[in-house]
């Protein structure tokens, strides 16, 4: 049976059930507030947000695969494009762009102009050093790990810190090869 054609981010987003972004934004705000209360240290909150993102990413990837009909990506460049054009669109309703590729094609930036996590949020001075959207870096890292790619995801630009966009650097560290059971017999 020939595989179904891959679907565009717009097509998927139009076909799924959607909720008011405010519910999402406010719930995320409540989570960050909880973490700040529980953990107090901004650096701990950053770590916890990344971990929570990772926990989401390892589950979210299957929905991404199921709905997008994507087959195995040829290379990391294709992977990055899929995240930006399909992933962000089908879940968050926003389009991202990929840029700043390095010579190897293993490191790039994903840039978001719109970010539903941060509507009507302003960081007070007491939250210096907080990466408010750090959940996103974990989501990408977790999702990619489940399809055999180990990556490092870091923030380059953050609008809540005064920059003009949200920019995430995604660096491919290792492509984990498929493991066959019983391949290396005792």
């Amino acid at each position, binding site marked *: 049976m020939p595989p179904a054609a891959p679907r565009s981010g*717009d097509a998927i*987003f*139009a076909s*799924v*059930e*959607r*909720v*008011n*972004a*405010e*519910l*999402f934004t*406010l*719930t*995320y*705000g*409540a*989570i*960050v*507030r*909880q*973490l*700040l209360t*529980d953990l107090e240290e901004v650096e701990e909150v950053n770590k*916890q947000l990344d971990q*929570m993102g990772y*926990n*989401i990413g390892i*589950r*979210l990837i299957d*929905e991404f695969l199921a709905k997008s009909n994507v087959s195995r990506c040829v290379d990391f460049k294709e992977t990055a494009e899929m995240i930006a054009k399909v992933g962000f669109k*089908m*879940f*968050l*309703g*926003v389009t991202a762009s990929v840029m700043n590729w390095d010579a190897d094609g293993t490191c790039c930036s994903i840039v978001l102009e*719109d*970010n*539903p996590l*941060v*509507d*009507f*949020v*302003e*960081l*007070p001075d*007491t*939250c210096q050093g907080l990466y*408010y959207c750090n959940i996103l870096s974990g989501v990408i890292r977790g999702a990619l790990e489940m399809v055999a790619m180990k990556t490092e995801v870091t923030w380059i630009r953050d609008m809540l810190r005064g920059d003009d966009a949200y920019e995430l650097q995604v660096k491919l560290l290792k492509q984990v090869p498929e493991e066959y059971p019983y391949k290396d017999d005792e």
Partner: protein
Amino acid sequence: MIGTGKIKQYANVLDKPLGKGKQEVPSLSLASLFVSLSAFAFLFSELVQYNQTQVDNISELETRLEDAGYAVGARVLELLCHRDKGNRRETRLLGILSFVHSTVWKVLFGKVADSLEKGTEHEDEYMISEKELLVNRFISIPKDMGTFHCGAFVAGIVKGVLENAGFPAVVTAHFVPVEGQQRPRTTILIKFAEEVVCLGVG
């Protein structure tokens, strides 16, 4: 603490057409007005999972979810009041209940709640019911968690709205079995504080 800071101006969300795209609003560009239900569901699931690691029992878990919801409720009230500039503050009990059942529900969950009823046994009790809360759409509670309800989050939202509007109450979420239906429906039970009831329902 993170707050809404300077509340930004934008058009009433209820009037917006469904679907994608930015709305042109003076002085502020809006992100997409909608996200997928899945995005919210994953986020909510993680909220529940995180809180499970912070508690020793189910009752504490419900309390923490309620607290998280409370913060959302307080913000929603701020945002909605700011939007309807011409609207005077609600001073009547039935008015604020209707506000929660219709306006708040529509903004957060995309529809008005299934029903709003006054409790028959107690003067100070009201119930908002839903066949299924949006937050529970994909959640199956394990049998060994008894009466635990993730809707404690929604109960918290309602409490946050009511209390910040000047109507303190105890709000809880319950599963109510329905005859002939496999799945129970949910009731958000609102029990107003004495001082609210004494001021009169009118």
